[in-house]
């Protein structure tokens, strides 16, 4: 966490780019060499003067990037030292004029380039499986667990192979054998692989394509086919989530500002909230979350171009966060109606006021089911072995879930809110003041809000009231 007492300093781009790499922290004067800087600093008589004057330690300084679009422009992301901010500015916002001839990597800071030249292509460790490493510790760790070593030790143990290591058979053996040849150990348990739907083939391959720059994975291990299958779930889920988020953007652009705008934003085209494949907004998200095994059905046609649909039209110049101008572009890519961030929030506000009929997650695809098994589901259990749905009743949200009718009312509102067609139920809430009974604490709250009472009253007893933030 950033130190709230630190002094935040914003230097100008000119200062930061100055090639006088050694800069005096006191007066910002720059020097080509460190020795000169030290001599200069002695002239400031630093420690003594500070002690005599202020009687306390020099304040910790943090440096922000002057570039507005940059994440490090924000004081909470300030960098802790002067050299760091200079290097950052130069690297991120400066021109990359130093290029490595061997691998074409470009650097803005000459010292970075020099450091790279030292190691580019020099140290290389090669595992028997063929993977290359530039760092010894990653090589050792990989080697310890690599199938190639297992193969080799199995061979020496059974005394079949000649003592001299013969690399090719190892690799061959690794590729062809379906299970590990370790005599004393049973084949590793394989998780059941879901069938591979053709539609997700593209995405699966995206996920299993190994990034050549990150060496470790070129091992042609026998588990690769399994990975491919296992990754389908991941692939389709990731795709769906991507698609869902991006679809939210595309659907929002077509949303009207009518009172049903909100519902249309989130509801799928099949407004009854059925769980059939959706390409819009949150429905998709929750559907994926609710029924992972159905991911294969979700938006298969869009799986081929996750990138083009994505919200992030990102531009290399900022590490984090969106650029000032780019932000606007980003926002408009998101909504062809050309909304800026300001407009986004204002629209949300308008919709909120108008959406008296919509409920929080209506149309999000939550499906009611027969009551799930009781008992507190351990979080861990959910993760690894899917069991019943979680029943963490009342966790953290200050509700007691004793299943009584009061809760039902609280959560569901009255049945009249939902037509018989609705198979989805609201998460929090309920249809609202406009229709249905007014019983239940939540309904009353909504009524009071609509009637213009101070929201503060609602907060007064809340968990946040007066609670200190650590």
């Amino acid at each position: 966490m950033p130190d709230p007492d630190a002094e935040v300093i914003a230097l100008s781009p000119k200062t930061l780019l100055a090639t006088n790499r050694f800069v005096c922290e006191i007066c910002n004067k720059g020097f080509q060499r460190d020795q000169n800087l030290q001599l200069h600093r002695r002239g400031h008589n630093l420690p003594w003067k500070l002690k005599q004057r202020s009687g306390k330690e020099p304040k910790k300084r943090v440096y922000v990037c002057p570039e507005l679009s940059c994440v490090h422009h924000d004081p909470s992301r300030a960098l802790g030292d002067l050299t760091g901010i200079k290097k950052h500015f130069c690297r991120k916002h400066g021109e990359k004029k130093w290029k490595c001839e061997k691998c074409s990597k470009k650097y803005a800071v000459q010292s970075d380039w020099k450091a790279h030249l030292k190691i580019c292509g020099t140290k290389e460790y090669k595992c028997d499986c063929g993977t290359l490493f530039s760092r010894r510790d990653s090589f050792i760790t990989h080697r310890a667990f690599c199938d190639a070593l297992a193969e080799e030790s199995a061979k020496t143990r059974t005394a079949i192979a000649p003592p001299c290591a013969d690399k090719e058979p190892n690799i061959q053996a690794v590729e062809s054998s379906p299970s590990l040849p370790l005599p004393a150990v049973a084949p590793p348990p394989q998780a059941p692989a879901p069938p591979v739907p053709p539609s997700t083939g593209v995405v699966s391959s995206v996920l299993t394509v190994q990034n050549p720059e990150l060496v470790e994975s070129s091992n042609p291990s026998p588990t690769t086919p399994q990975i491919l299958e296992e990754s389908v779930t991941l692939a389709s889920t990731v795709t769906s989530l991507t698609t869902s988020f991006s679809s939210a953007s595309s659907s929002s652009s077509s949303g009207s500002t009518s009172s049903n705008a909100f519902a249309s934003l989130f509801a799928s085209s099949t407004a009854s909230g059925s769980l059939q494949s959706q390409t819009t907004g949150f429905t998709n998200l929750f559907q994926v979350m609710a029924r992972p095994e159905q991911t294969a059905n979700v938006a298969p046609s869009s799986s081929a171009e996750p990138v083009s649909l994505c919200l992030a039209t990102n531009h290399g110049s900022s590490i984090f966060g969106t650029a000032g101008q780019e932000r606007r572009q980003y926002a408009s890519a998101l909504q062809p109606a050309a909304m800026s961030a300001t407009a986004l929030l204002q629209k949300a506000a308008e919709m909120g006021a108008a959406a008296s009929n919509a409920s929080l997650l209506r149309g999000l695809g939550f499906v009611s089911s027969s009551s799930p098994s009781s008992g507190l589901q351990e979080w861990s259990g959910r993760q690894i072995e899917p069991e019943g749905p979680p029943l963490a009743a009342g966790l953290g949200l200050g509700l007691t879930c004793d299943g009584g009718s009061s809760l039902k009312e609280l959560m569901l509102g009255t049945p009249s809110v939902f037509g018989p067609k609705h198979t989805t139920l609201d998460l929090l809430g309920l249809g609202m003041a406009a229709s249905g009974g007014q019983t239940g604490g939540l309904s009353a709250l909504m009524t009071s809000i609509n009637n213009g009472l101070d929201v503060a009253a609602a907060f007064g007893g809340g968990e946040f009231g007066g609670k200190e933030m650590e």
Partner: protein
Amino acid sequence: MKAEQRANSSSMSLQNPSLLNTTQSSISGALKECLGSLDGACIEKLLLHFASALESKDVTSAQQVMWVLNNVASSIGDPNQRLASWFLKALISRASMVCPTTISFDGRGVLQRRPMTVTELAGYVDLIPWHRFGFCASNSAIFKATQGFPRVHILDFSITHCMQWPTLIDALAKRSEGPPSLRISVPSWRPPVPPLLNVSNEEVCQRLTNFAKFKDVPFEINVIEVPQISPMDASIQQLGSSNHYDLLLSQLNPSTLKLRDDEALVINCQNWLRYMPDELTGSTLHGTSCRDAFLDTIKDLSPCIVMVVDEDCDLGTSSLASRITTCFNYLWIPFDAFETFLPKNSPQRTEYEADIGHKIENIIGFEDIQRIERMESGTKLSKRMANRGFQSVLFCEETVKEVKILLDEHASGWGMKKDDDMLVLTWKGHNSIYATAWVPCSFGVEY
């Protein structure tokens, strides 16, 4: 000071309800400061508002904020957007648990994270120095502490499936006095968190044994069997992980562990302590927490060194708002690190971020015993260790040098600082991981 203002503004907006008030549009009133810039600070505020809207059941606000967040968040966007997407999922997951009888939200976690192969895990722990930093510092300290001993026994409590040990085995193999006989004991149970492997403990042990043999280091690896909880026993199940720890503690005694007098006992806690419950419970002796009881137990084993490596962040608080802020301002670090050297659609990056998302979901989405990610900063941990009768051990110059060399080989934002007796991994100056070494106080006085 802008930094101070920023740090305080979130708390102000919550303690000052009038900021959140308007009947027409609570969102635009509350988020006035954000207008015009959807940056990290704004996203953080949005998350806080969403959380408080959920807590006060202010559906209108929740809808509005969620709509905005949904349009901002993206799991393949820039780091802020990615982080926001995981946070949003966590908050929604939390919201969905309010209505247990009506929602069949299959809480399999937002993303079913596929388990990795051992070689994939080997690469995973080296993607960024998040784990390797701890491995390097610990192994170096362990090497130093066990010099001269003919036998070394390591009790390994970690979540990275023995990825730490190959480099130590390699170093021990080259020891000037010859390698010691090395024995490693690992518990059969570990917290159910990523990284997940697609093979059994036994398989990992077998491979490590192979490797040690290859390096000519006498080696043995044992699994400390933590008795299984019968799934039918619902009342025990309610206790969740904490019961696993109680059972584990019961196994940590000299006879079960077969401790020997001539061996140097090393206790390695790597990303472990934060999972141990810290509430005072009646079930443990003297009403100490599970975490403290664990420390007491290992102290009684008379180890020659105890390594504690963990995430340098305080997330044990019960205040949701505080957790959101702290978590957001801490976990941006790995997201930012990935952004600097991995492409947007890199599968390794996606998977690593999903694992962090898993962590976020637990921190934000759960309470009580189900919230198992309860990080404690190095500073606080140091106080705890001192309270439990440990004294810190300085890292020697050689260790510091080794860690520096390691970091030089990674992206240039990674650095290290020495904070008293603590080594801290930093990213762009921000603390991420701390590494500490301890021994029981020689003249241990009862506290």
